[in-house]
């Protein structure tokens, strides 16, 4: 597999805001939670800090009427996808059957999953809401993406907790290498809600946990040979066997250490690496965020050379992504924000 895959566009949103400039700012400041999620009714005013995403920008890309049946989970995905397409200079809608979609999500459409249970519990089994049901399935975001952006190539949703991100990128890599698609929109999507906040609180009683995060991070990938405006290249995407990390000479190590105690020992056993999780919070599919932040850091000159991104799961498996910076400088001016000057 000598073909490299080019990242041609990135669209990310989360506690840091939405879009490239917001993410670059967070890289500079170090980030932090921007909101809080209550623990349900039971704890009075109690809440936990969280990284909360805002999807209002989506209405700039898609008309409100089209979004009337789209929940927060899918709105985050759609905004991430639209930002990535725009970043790559692609039109919206895409209208192609040579473009594929892959979504990685550890938890899926959490709010709607529980809203559907609410509709059953409040109104009785016979009055459960079909609209909520159809939007509660993990694949609903990919469906809305394909319908609203007119993408009719291959489509996949993966749920593999911490390895969701690497599995998605691995699949995209293979689709491009063997021509199943000419471009693939790959994205991580996670949502937080009160149930999760409650679980974090309870899990946190025994061990320190990370700070929950939500948002979406999409990459528009193409074969390097087809890409006119590559921002970076994925040289390797793999789930290596065994626990021994082979360090890539000269590459900066980026670890997906988002504060989850189950993987902390693994990360501690490695050489010290950079973690970007303080920008986006703790989220299982966070490795795709790590890729995007790594590319931004390469572009801003914070990291020089290649990045070796590692994300481990609680069973000691891990995913590895090797990211090479773009070779031709082309975009220096584009990620400076007026408000930043």
């Amino acid at each position: 597999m000598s073909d490299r895959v080019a990242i041609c566009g990135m669209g990310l949103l989360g506690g840091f805001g939405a879009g490239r400039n917001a993410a670059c700012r967070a890289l500079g400041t170090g980030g932090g939670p921007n909101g809080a999620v209550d623990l349900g009714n039971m704890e009075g005013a109690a809440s936990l800090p969280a990284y909360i995403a805002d999807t209002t920008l989506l209405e700039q890309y898609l008309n409100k009427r089209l979004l009337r049946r789209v929940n927060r989970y899918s709105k985050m995905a759609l905004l991430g996808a639209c930002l990535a397409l725009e970043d790559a200079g692609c039109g919206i809608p895409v209208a192609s059957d040579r473009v594929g979609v892959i979504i990685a999500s550890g938890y899926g459409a959490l709010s709607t999953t529980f809203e559907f249970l609410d509709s059953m519990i409040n109104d009785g089994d016979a009055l459960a809401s079909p609209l909520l049901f159809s939007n509660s399935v993990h694949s609903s975001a990919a469906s809305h993406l394909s319908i609203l952006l007119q993408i009719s190539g291959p489509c996949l949703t993966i749920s593999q907790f911490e390895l969701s991100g690497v599995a998605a990128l691995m699949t995209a890599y293979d689709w491009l290498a063997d021509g199943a698609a000419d471009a693939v929109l790959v994205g991580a999507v996670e949502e937080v809600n009160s149930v999760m906040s409650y679980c974090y609180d309870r899990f946190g009683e025994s061990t320190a946990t990370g700070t929950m995060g939500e948002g979406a991070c999409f990459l528009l990938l193409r074969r390097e040979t087809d890409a006119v405006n590559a921002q970076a290249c994925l040289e390797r995407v793999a789930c290596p066997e065994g626990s021994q990390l082979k360090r890539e000479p000269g590459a900066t190590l980026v670890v997906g250490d988002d504060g989850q105690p189950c993987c902390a020992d693994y990360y501690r056993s490695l050489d010290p690496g950079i973690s970007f999780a303080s920008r986006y919070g703790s989220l299982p599919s966070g490795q795709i965020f790590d890729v995007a932040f790594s590319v931004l850091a390469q572009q801003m000159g914070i990291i020089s050379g290649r990045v070796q991104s590692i994300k481990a799961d609680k069973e000691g498996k891990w995913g590895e992504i090797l990211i090479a910076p773009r070779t031709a400088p082309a975009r220096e001016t584009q990620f400076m924000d007026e408000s930043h000057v």
Partner: protein
Amino acid sequence: MEHWPRKKEPVPVTGCGCLCAAGKTLSETMDSLYAGRRGNISFEQVVSTHPIKYPLFALPPEFAPAGYSDAPECERCGRLAIAAATEAVLDAGFAPDALKGRRVGVCIGTTVGSAMNNEGFYREFRLEMRPDVEPIRSFLQANPAAMVARAFSLSGPCMTVVNACSSGTVAIGEAADWIRTGRCDLAIAGGADMLCRVVYNGFISLKITDEAPCRPFDQDRRGLNLGEGAGVVLLESTASAGARNAVPRARLCGYGNACDAYHPSAPHPQAAGLARAFDRALAQAGIQDRDLAFINAHGTGTPENDAAEGHLFSTRFSGIPFSSTKGYTGHTLGAAGGIEAAITIACLEAGQIPGNAGLRTPDPAWEAAPVAQTTAIRGCHAISDSAAFGGNNGAILFERGNP
């Protein structure tokens, strides 16, 4: 585009396993299918206050793997997957512990197995009862692909596909690419799903469930019946199978995955995405439409699904025998593609396909009709297709092991 369509190297299938309401193993399932015997139908498997009790293709207790009924609910999909995988691994001539140390991947499709919808926990949460978080802890341990990998001590790629009803088919197609690209030498691939009252209520709310046992492709069809189970194939590289003189039961020659980009819950009426999935699978296999010995249809029994497929089979695959096996197994959602892959392979070996259970009057809206009785087939290639919520379609194409 020079990259596509192009023929791909076939991937040997050296073992199959399946359990569902129609059988505890693949061979038991095939006995039921060829005898025209529907699987075990229960009206009581799921508790619901809905005034109508809908038929469910439930696993009889004696089919369930050991410890199944005592396991936390969220683990059951994984346990079904492990049971089908064990059958496939043994079928391939491996001892259950013989995969350890080999390069083996796991790719499992599911719906319920990845949903954090523990109702008991959530009811207590709503009532401000500070529920124990143990069910959530269990859920975090119960990812179906990870459970299979744990059970067989595997360290290769591991992926749970949640493409709704096409998950099993897509999981097998993706795993075949892992073998071709050398990401692993073997892959346990398929789907697993269990009956659950949340999903039961959801499908009733969509008004696509039949009060009677389902009747795919019949003019009087009223919807689907849910089912449960798992189906798995063991994919193996040609080199690995050759090195141990394993005789493939079949070869996976093609896989297509394509979206309708049409509607969140209804299929494209002319099956636009499904047709593209067929195109891709056929192109990878390097064969023509007419070379297909048969099609294992998705055929859920809902008016819309069967109309879309009926249109495709009439206009494009006229004369190719097809049938749906959902009338025997129910619609097992994420497991369906896995179960039907195993059935498709068994049919290629036996040279016959089962009659489409529940068919009385073929829908006159389209020309093609499924076979009503067990029917001999000619040829050595067949497609099993799946269509899902949101217009995701998958098709996998198998060739008989000894053509």
